[in-house]
């Protein structure tokens, strides 16, 4: 990013800040140097514990195909990756479980009432400008009630149009190709309609055969090869179209945007590689549509209003056409309506109170026998306050959630749930002249059983209670900008935390017969962890810049569900839960020199077990990958071209994130970008 552009953006930022009558916002946070298009978003004024963020160029240089790939560079998270471009990728924050992660797209949560999981592999980075990860909740109070509801949250912010002086439109075209038979064109067109209204349209197409070589090799204790076999991953193909359109308006009084999102895909489900079965034929079709709008307005000097609306319609079809197995052709349709009104009152200069009320309706239809056709009505009310005194900032919130489920089948009765979940956030800057902060938060959250947990024919248990998470976090953060020397600035951050997951919903065997399950609230997990992060920005002579970023996570996530299963060898009690490594981390180097940039990324995930019984049969080896990319920008009149080439998993490590789902070895990607 050129200096000129960032300066301009900073100006926009200040304007926004003034617009919101909150002159202190951002000014004393540590991320001034990070400022770019993203910080214009109107929801960060009171954020007292900064999020982990990846944005702008930094984000796009991380050899990442999807949002899931980029999230690997955050600390405290685990990605469950089934491999390949079309494979399912879900995220777990601080070992609390995928269902506790809220994923917000342009400020509004993406829902999946059916199974509560968001496949982040489906979200392309093409139009994403920033990814932010919050532990607990976003530490600001002027936000929808839903934002107070998750135990951890990922905010995906798409690009908002900004225009250079006298520029009426921006056009950007991208083409990505490489391994896995990838062809991935996209186009972005942003138009300035009037001074206060602009539009954006983005389209992307992905095609990939999803084929890649993988290898299984085992050796005998003396080092001799037992077996060594290489095969090609089959049925991992994908074809997807994404269309997004948005309108962005701002006047003196009102700031609003509205968008439409459409995604349509067909993919193969590559399946587990097991003895004698190296190929599967299951298919999946997805069609996701949503439209959403957001509006914020300062009605009075002391009173602000925020309103949001969303309608979503998701269709999924799963086909197993392999007649040697159970023939399945299921389809599921989900709908969601969501509205939100949030109000904030400035009582004094340093005391804000907000009240947010959300209403949400979900429904799920399926062509399954005896299906309950559930509907869910959720009302959320959040009362929050922020109070600043001396160099201490505090926030407290209480969220009241009322859930009413209605089912078509008379066999299951209607159920109601009413929960209160509080959160307290604290931040202190003990030294006046140093950007040193002590942060702490306590938060209790819950997740409702999903429609599958409750009503899935046969397995569902309509009597399920919510699953709770309690989090305690203590963090330190230090940032310094240096005037002299080659080190421009540095940020150091560390957090220690303790989480408890109680009433955890897990499947237990039911009755006679094979693989019949019942969902029950019997799990209990304790998680102790440390996240550490360091970011250093260097400026060398000859205009060489270097950004280094290190992340490290330690987690001890123990399964306390069944005290009787305490066999010294094979017991699950006190064992590390499935797929959570004790150690993991990442390291990135981003060089830039004039129009060149060179990036190196290293990811390490330590040894894990795929079951709470931490025995050798369940052991999973550590894996680590090295990725390298090189980019060059060309300018021709007003046109910008960029060519980048990536080589990922340089040392061709053959690894698995999930048992029997082999990951790709060395793979390549070339990206051509054109901008006006």
């Amino acid at each position, binding site marked *: 990013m050129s200096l000129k552009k960032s300066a301009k953006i900073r100006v926009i930022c200040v304007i926004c800040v003034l617009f919101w009558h909150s002159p202190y916002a951002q000014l004393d946070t540590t991320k001034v140097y990070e400022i770019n298009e993203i910080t214009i978003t109107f929801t960060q004024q009171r954020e007292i514990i900064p999020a982990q963020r990846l944005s702008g160029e930094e984000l796009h240089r991380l050899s990442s195909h999807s949002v899931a790939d980029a999230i690997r560079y955050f600390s405290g998270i685990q990605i469950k990756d089934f491999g390949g471009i079309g494979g399912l990728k879900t995220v777990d924050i601080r070992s609390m479980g995928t269902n506790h992660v809220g994923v917000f797209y342009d400020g509004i949560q993406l829902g999946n009432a059916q199974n509560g999981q968001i496949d982040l592999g489906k979200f392309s980075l093409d139009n994403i400008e920033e990814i932010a990860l919050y532990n607990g909740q976003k530490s600001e109070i002027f936000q929808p009630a839903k934002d107070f509801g998750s135990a951890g949250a990922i905010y995906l912010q798409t690009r908002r149009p900004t225009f250079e002086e006298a520029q009426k439109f921006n056009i950007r075209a991208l083409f990505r190709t490489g391994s896995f038979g990838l062809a991935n064109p996209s186009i972005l067109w942003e138009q300035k309609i009037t001074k206060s209204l602009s539009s954006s349209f983005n389209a992307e197409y992905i095609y990939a055969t999803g084929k890649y070589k993988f290898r*299984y090799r*085992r050796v*005998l204790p003396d080092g001799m090869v*037992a*077996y060594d*076999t290489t095969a090609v991953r089959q049925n991992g193909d994908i074809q997807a179209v994404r269309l997004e359109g948005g309108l962005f308006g701002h006047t003196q009084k009102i700031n609003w945007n509205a968008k439409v999102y459409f995604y349509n895909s067909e993919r193969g489900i590559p*399946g*587990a*590689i*097991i*003895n*004698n*079965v190296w190929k599967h034929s299951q298919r999946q079709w997805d069609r996701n549509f949503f439209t959403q709008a957001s509006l914020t307005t300062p009605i009075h000097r002391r009173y602000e209003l925020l309103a949001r609306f969303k309608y979503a319609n998701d269709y999924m079809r799963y086909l197993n056409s392999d*007649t*040697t*197995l*159970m*023939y399945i052709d299921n389809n599921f349709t989900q709908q969601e309506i969501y509205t939100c009104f949030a109000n904030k009152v400035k009582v004094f200069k340093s005391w804000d109170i907000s009240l947010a009320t959300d209403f949400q309706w979900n429904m799920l239809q399926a062509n399954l*026998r*005896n299906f309950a056709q559930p509907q869910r009505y959720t009302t959320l009310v959040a009362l929050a306050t922020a109070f600043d005194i001396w160099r201490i900032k505090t926030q407290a919130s209480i969220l009241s959630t009322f859930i009413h489920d209605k089912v078509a089948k008379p066999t299951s009765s209607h159920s109601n749930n009413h929960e209160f979940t509080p959160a307290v956030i604290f931040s202190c800057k003990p030294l006046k002249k140093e950007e040193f902060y002590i942060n702490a938060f306590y938060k209790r959250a819950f997740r409702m059983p999903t429609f599958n947990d409750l009503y899935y024919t*046969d397995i569902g*248990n309509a*009597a399920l209670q919510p699953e709770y998470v309690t989090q305690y976090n203590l963090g330190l953060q230090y940032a310094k900008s240096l005037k002299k020397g080659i080190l421009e600035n540095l940020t150091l951050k560390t957090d220690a935390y303790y989480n408890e997951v109680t009433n955890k919903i*897990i*499947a*237990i*065997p*039911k*009755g*006679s*017969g094979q*693989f*019949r*399950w*019942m969902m*029950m609230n019997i799990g209990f997990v304790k998680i102790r962890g440390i996240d550490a992060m360091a970011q250093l920005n260097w400026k060398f002579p000859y205009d060489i810049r270097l950004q280094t970023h290190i992340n490290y996570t330690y987690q001890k996530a123990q399964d306390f569900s*069944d005290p*009787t*299963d305490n*066999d010294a*060898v*094979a017991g*699950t009690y006190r064992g590390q839960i499935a797929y959570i490594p004790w150690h993991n981390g990442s390291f990135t180097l981003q060089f830039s020199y004039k129009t060149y940039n060179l990036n190196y990324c290293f990811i390490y995930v330590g040894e894990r077990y*795929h*079951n*709470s*019984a931490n*025995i050798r*049969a369940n052991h999973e080896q550590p894996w680590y990958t090295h990725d390298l990319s090189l980019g060059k920008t060309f300018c021709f009149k007003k046109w910008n071209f960029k060519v980048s080439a990536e080589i990922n998993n340089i040392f061709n490590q053959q690894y698995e994130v999930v*048992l*029997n789902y082999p990951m790709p070895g060395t793979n390549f990607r070339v990206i051509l970008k054109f901008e006006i």
Partner: protein
Amino acid sequence: MKVNCIFLALLIAFCFTSCRKDPEIFLHEEVPVTHPQFISIQGFYLLNEGNMGQNKSTLDYFDYEEGVYYRNIYGEANPSVPKELGDVGNDLAIYGNKLYAVINCSNKIEVMDAKTAERIGQIDIPNCRYITFYNGFAYVTSYAGPVTIDPDYQQIGYIAKIDTTSLQILDKCLVGLQPDGLAIANGKIYVANSGGYLSPNYENTVSVIDAASFKEIKQIKVAVNLHRVCADKNGNIWVNTRGDYFNTSSKLYCIDSKTDQLTDSINIAVSNFHLDDDRLYIIGVKWNYETMSNEINYGIVDVVSKQIITKKFITDGTDINIKTPYGIIVNPITKDIYVTDVKNYISPGTLYCFDKNGKQKWNVSTGDIPAHIAFIGKYKSNF
């Protein structure tokens, strides 16, 4: 003259041989009367099923002489087999010198040397379920029948006939929907059709196949969702139903193989059983929607009187340690009872050994979902 002499000698020799034999000693005659019985047992193999998609079906071995339990022996015996034994072991049996492991999701029957567990070969049968043997042939049930173009297409299963010498599939016979257990009596094969893919509209018949012609000769209507089958020495066929898990509960049924009529039903929940002499040892696990927990019984049925002898063969109270009993077998010589506990299906299970009075002798940690046991030993002394 010379020629005449030779001719005469041959004639004399012919007369001697054709007219009268040297009296032979008596050689024994073989008449199959009942199933072979062990005279000594040296150990048993245990097949762990492993959860679907995990490729964690493993083979364990217990040696009586040493008193040692060997966990996970397949990989060492067969280091060059890629991805080891496979996914979801569904049945295990020894016939002759061979050990047969039916690996359901790996679509094969792994054939091993019964003494060493070294691989001999595999028989490819998609979605294979259970195995039994008769007169040198193996019979295997499979869910994977032919595909027909039909709007109300139902997946008819079959039973395959396999030559145990060449390991080739000789013939297939279509039966009902999703056939599971099978047993042989009076020259007929009895197959339990479950219809498990049609839940809640299960299949409810036992197919009867003439072993000689290998054709289905009858379907006997029994009850919904049939599961396992065994034949007792009086020619009775015992079948259990899983029930439909809601209104119809699991039960035990008896078919007379002489008349092929359903003769008795015994009201006991049965999820697995094992026949030893005249005693049918039963594990019954029944989900109770009121208490949201499993109700478990450990029953014995006398197959002659057709009465329940007990519903609690574990007598020392140690059954409270067993969370989800799954596999059951009885040592035919010592009458020790083996019960496997699969716990939550995803973590390692436990094998429990009880003596004939139902007192726990020992227990050992197994692989995931310990389920099927086959004894190895001597049937008869060499004479």
